[in-house]
């Protein structure tokens, strides 16, 4: 099973990287960029085929390790 996890910064949290990327893109001549936010994308390959059990487990992984819930949100999806 391939699990896809997205970890993004919460809405009001400063994203220094996104800011710099946006500036750099417009220096490169790309216009019309309103904002850029950078997050993490994690792919996990899991044994087994019980999607429900896996989702529970993946949520726990995010809560315990992968995401920093103080400033980040996460979402889990299984292919």
């Amino acid at each position, binding site marked *: 099973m391939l699990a896809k996890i997205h970890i993004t910064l*919460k809405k*009001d*949290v*400063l*994203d*220094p990287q996104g*800011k*710099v990327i946006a*500036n750099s893109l417009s220096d490169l001549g790309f216009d019309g960029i309103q904002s850029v936010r950078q997050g993490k994308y994690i792919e996990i390959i899991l044994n087994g085929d019980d999607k429900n059990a896996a989702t529970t487990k993946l949520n726990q992984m995010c809560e315990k390790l992968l995401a*920093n*819930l*103080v*400033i980040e949100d996460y979402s889990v999806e299984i292919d």
Partner: protein
Amino acid sequence: MTWEHKTDQSLVESHGLKHDEFDSIVQGLGREPNFTELGIFSAMWNEHCSYKSSKFWLKKLPTTGDRVVQGPGENAGVIDIDDGDVAVFKMESHNHPSYIEPYQGAATGVGGILRDIFTMGARPVANLNALRFGEPNHPKTKHLLSGVVEGIGGYGNCIGIPTVGGEVNFHPSYNGNILVNAMTVGIAKKDKIFYSAAAGIGNPVVYVGSKTGRDGIHGATMASAEFDDDSEDKKPTVQVGDPFTEKLLLEACLELMKEQAIIAIQDMGAAGLTSSSIEMASKGNVGLEIDLTKVPMRASNMTAYELMLSESQERMLMVLEPGKEEMARNIFKKWDLEFEVIGKVTDTKNLVLNMHGKEEACIPINILVEDAPEYQRDYTVREPAGEYQIDPNTLNSKTIIDDLVIMLSHPNLCSRRWIWEQYDHMVMADTLVRPGSDAAVVRVHGTNKAIAISTDCSPTYCKHNSFEGGKHAVVETWRNLVASGALPIAITDCMNFGNPEKPEIMGEFVECIRGMTEACTILNYPVVSGNVSLYNETNGEGIYPTPAIGGVGLIKDISKTKTIAFKQNNSLVYAVGETKGHLGNSQYLSIVQHKELGSTPVIDLNKELKNGKFILELVNQDLALSAHDIGEGGLLVAAAEMSLSSGIGITIDCAIKSHEFFFGEDQGRYLIEIDIQNDDTLKKLSADHGVVVEYIGQTKDAVIEIKENSKISIEELKNNHEKWFPDFTK
């Protein structure tokens, strides 16, 4: 007492204001404050900004001296280091934010203290950090330790200021409330220091740096509240650091400071725009009028309340000479930073805030500052713990060396290499003595002189005798500077304590201050800056009293710099100062016998002074090859550290071989290494100075040996000494 105001009582309470405090706001204003004003009062009158519990006592600290250019009261203290150069330094706490989000909390702590330094016109040249964590097996310790160290490194490495030293301790009293104290030292020219007093009616007030977002709103209020189990809910207030922007801000500010343009400058730290604007106005005895619509905003629809209380990082407020706006704007634009004229200096002595043409606040500055509450809280002083005699039956059959290995492997005495290797401690190419010696030594760029810096405190000493503990924290930094060959000049402090409304805690505070005062006075080692962090409690349990001290000294000629590393075989090693074997509250008791017992060692400050001067005389006459103060862990631990950092062993053949002798923590002592041909000179000099010196042994091979007792190879000891942090954090 009944609540007689229109403003909701719980709203006032949630702003951390007491009833009588609110009464005096109403009285001062002649009306009830609106919501924005309430927020401003709450930020200004909390413990963190107002120092309401500590002010009375802080005034007792000695703050003047020949070399003091600026004492407490500005963004940082300033001392004269000759040739028109000054060192600018301060230490600050970021305890609560670091507990909630260790990486960002620690990182923004570093960012904040750096701004305090370059606001004064100094280029920061060194960072240090004093850290305290709970016991290692507490479930949160590993996460907090890793996050804090990574955050400190993340910020300091990126901005390119070396992190050259610090300290770290583990103790259960910090289980629910860690301490993260960051110190920065900068170098400036004496005639190019910048201050924060606003002046010049009509002059423009300028905002520079990052945009304002909803970061850390209520951060300062949070720092003044005790934690409870719900504190996890307060998480969303944590701010994120942007060291890259800070680097730009640093360069832009220093560039503008070369021009005659800045009248006053103040960083936006805790309580952001509120405290910075009010501080500038109050110092200059003027008013400020600000149009909040002009403040660069990151989030949409921000309110006046949010703009005033946001703790977004990497921002500064300045008053400019009229007509210099465009020149200044160009500099900040060059560095891709926000620059906006947001207001002007007025003669009303009021803080007036407008937004979209509407007045959002109008508060007389003096009510906010001079009329801020000040308390002389009740305090009780605990009876210091009594003497402790070691029970010979507890010594079991272990050899002295076995105990040494246990001690040097323990989290409180093992190598901190895992920490400092994550910090760039060499960038700027002036770090002459890297972490791992007594003080860090950083050359003043382009000169032949250097500053030495050390941070210290022994919370256990402070807990069991706050007066002696306060003395000790000051003296320990002083000794570290002396052992490095530096003339100690002045200190900064970071006073971390529990809830001051409890008389016992207030007593600890008062006693520590009294001890510090006595030590600073006798050593001629004044306090030039500092910070107070109170309410470090969780569920009613206070931390141990922790007055972290950062000392700065001057090495006039870098060739006189001393490190703790033994330099050669067959040197003689002497202990300077008297060894009696005080084991109360020692590391030996705590680590080997798992006891926290007995009295804190007493420091005789006059002997301390004499011994320190003697060491400096040895340095001056090039007699000491290496030097190390004897601190926590006692004489044998100090000797072993000299071996560990050099690979050169020592054979100890003095007559006394008791645990008290090797591990006692008597004060005012150093170990020195001298060439055998200088033996007579040393003896004569010590007699002239009236200083006790005792022969300990001779440097030899790669083995630490206590004659007729036990020995260990340095390699084996090193493996034990280096293991703990890497294993723990794996």
